[in-house]
């Protein structure tokens, strides 16, 4: 009996020992044996080197203009001013990207009476003219130049050259002549219609305003403040179109030609169109800019979405950097991530 107990105990104790011995042999560590004195000496040398390097690095960091003026916070985002400048510049150019100005269809009318010296009868009304000009399809294109930007605190002063270029327009002209008095039986009435085409005159403007940087929802937002910009669209009628209208009106001779010529239809059209047309560019045209890095209010961790309490700790604008900071803590809500 005792013998069996001894065998049993040997088996019970032996199996784990043998198993551990086999596992220990199979997974024996690849440890290295080193002289402890040499290791200690190296630790002393490394500690001295580490401490001296640490002082150097800390001094360099504190005197680096990039890291000056940063707010406190668990998360800091530093946008160097040349980066902000480049992004804002791109957006300012983007404001005017592919901007077409389309004047709405409009009517302009000019009418009057023409008098002429008729010998002993003196000056007499010989007729009246009526010019009805319908402007349609007048469009111009806005083209931005290189913006001039000056940083000052949280404000960027901006001047953007804007050119109106590359537009055309068409005016439908209805010219009518009604003879009066003694010219009536000789000249009669006359009506002519013609399309007059024209080119929008290139002209330069300057949009002057400022962009104010602020922190909104953990993001740097650049809010433009530009006064309304008024530009004027001038159309130069094409010479060939005007000549065609003139030749249509110049089919009469003698007194009639004199009277109709006094109406100076082509000149009046050029005057009408030459005054230009106002185009109002409202403040809302200058749309806010959201800089592309922001503090998040939730974050994926493993298989869930963790909500965060984000408390802004400051916006600081130095010569070198625009800083935004936030203190972040875990909120109570943790939601499973969407599959």
């Amino acid at each position, binding site marked *: 009996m005792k013998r069996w107990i001894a065998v049993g105990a040997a088996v019970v104790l032996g199996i*784990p020992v043998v*198993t*551990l011995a086999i*596992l*220990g042999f199979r*997974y*024996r560590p690849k440890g290295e044996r*080193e002289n402890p004195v040499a290791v200690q000496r190296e*630790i002393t040398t*490394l500690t001295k080197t*580490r401490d001296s*390097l*640490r002082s150097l690095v*800390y001094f*360099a*960091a504190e005197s*680096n203009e*990039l890291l000056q003026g940063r707010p406190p916070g*668990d*998360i*800091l*985002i*530093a*946008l*160097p001013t*040349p*980066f902000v400048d*480049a*992004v804002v510049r*791109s*957006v300012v150019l*983007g*404001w005017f*990207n*592919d901007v*077409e*100005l389309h004047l*709405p269809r409009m009517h302009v009318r000019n009418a009057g009476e023409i008098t002429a010296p008729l010998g002993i009868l003196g000056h007499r009304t010989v007729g009246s003219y009526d010019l009805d000009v319908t402007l349609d399809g007048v469009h111009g294109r806005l083209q931005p130049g290189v913006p001039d930007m000056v940083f000052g605190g949280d404000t960027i002063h901006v001047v953007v050259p804007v050119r109106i270029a590359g537009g055309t327009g068409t005016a439908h002209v209805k010219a009518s002549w009604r003879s009066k008095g003694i010219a009536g039986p000789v000249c009669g009435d006359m009506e002519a219609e013609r399309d007059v085409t024209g080119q929008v005159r290139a002209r330069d403007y300057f949009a002057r305003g400022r962009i104010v940087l602020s922190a909104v929802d953990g993001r740097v937002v650049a809010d433009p403040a530009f006064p309304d910009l008024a530009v004027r669209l001038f159309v130069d009628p094409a010479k060939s179109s005007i000549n065609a209208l003139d030749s249509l009106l110049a089919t009469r001779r003698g007194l009639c030609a004199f009277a109709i010529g006094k109406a100076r239809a082509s000149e009046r059209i050029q005057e009408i169109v030459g005054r230009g047309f106002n*185009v*109002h*560019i*409202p403040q*809302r*045209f200058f*749309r806010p*800019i*959201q800089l*592309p*890095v*922001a503090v998040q*209010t*939730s*974050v*994926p*961790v*493993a298989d869930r979405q*963790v909500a*965060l309490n984000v408390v802004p700790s400051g916006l600081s604008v130095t010569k070198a950097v625009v800083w935004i900071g936030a203190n*972040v803590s*875990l909120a109570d809500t943790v939601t499973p991530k969407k599959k």
Partner: protein
Amino acid sequence: MVERDQLRREVAGYHSLTKLTPGRMLDREHEVLVSVSDTLLRNLLTVTFPLTIDLRNRTTLTLTNSKVAFRANVARVDLTGIVRRTTYPHISAAVKLRGALDGFVVDSSHALRARIHIDDVALDTPAGTLAAFDPLVIAVLQSVVERSLPELTEGLPSVAVPVRLDQAMELPGFGPEGALSIAPSIAAMTVTASRVVAFQNRMWIVLRLELGAFATVVKAVKP
């Protein structure tokens, strides 16, 4: 030796930091800095605990705590927990994984993520058998954990920095109002994690952002 290895890493880290002159730290026109405190990242990691990872040889590792320290240009992460065999003999030991954050990427959800890379495994407080076998238990479990590093690294959660990085800038349209009518436009932006510097208990991630030109958004016309 652990102390010496840590010192070696710190010295190498400080050496690399001394080479970062202000001019070389950042390409100021195309790069931005995101800085995050070690406390915040530790809190975010804590959310995932306890975390159990299956290793080789019917062994599991349960992580229960973490320590995050950013200094000497090393974004160090220490994870602690327990490693145990799930079959006979049911041996176990306390485990400490020493590693670092690396492999920063901006993923498709615009989040900035990093992986934990384990450099070193240390075990102590063995249990599950006679005290006489403690060194053997440590050796066995240490070896299992070391050989399971690929599975272990894969099983560790990635660390997301709570920062959103847009991959495009959008300008809304305008009008039609008076003579003005502007279609919305968009400029693509590529964002890449350029390099990471760790010091003063903070991790500083340099991100490179390249903004394209604005182009008009053309609405798809339904046939």
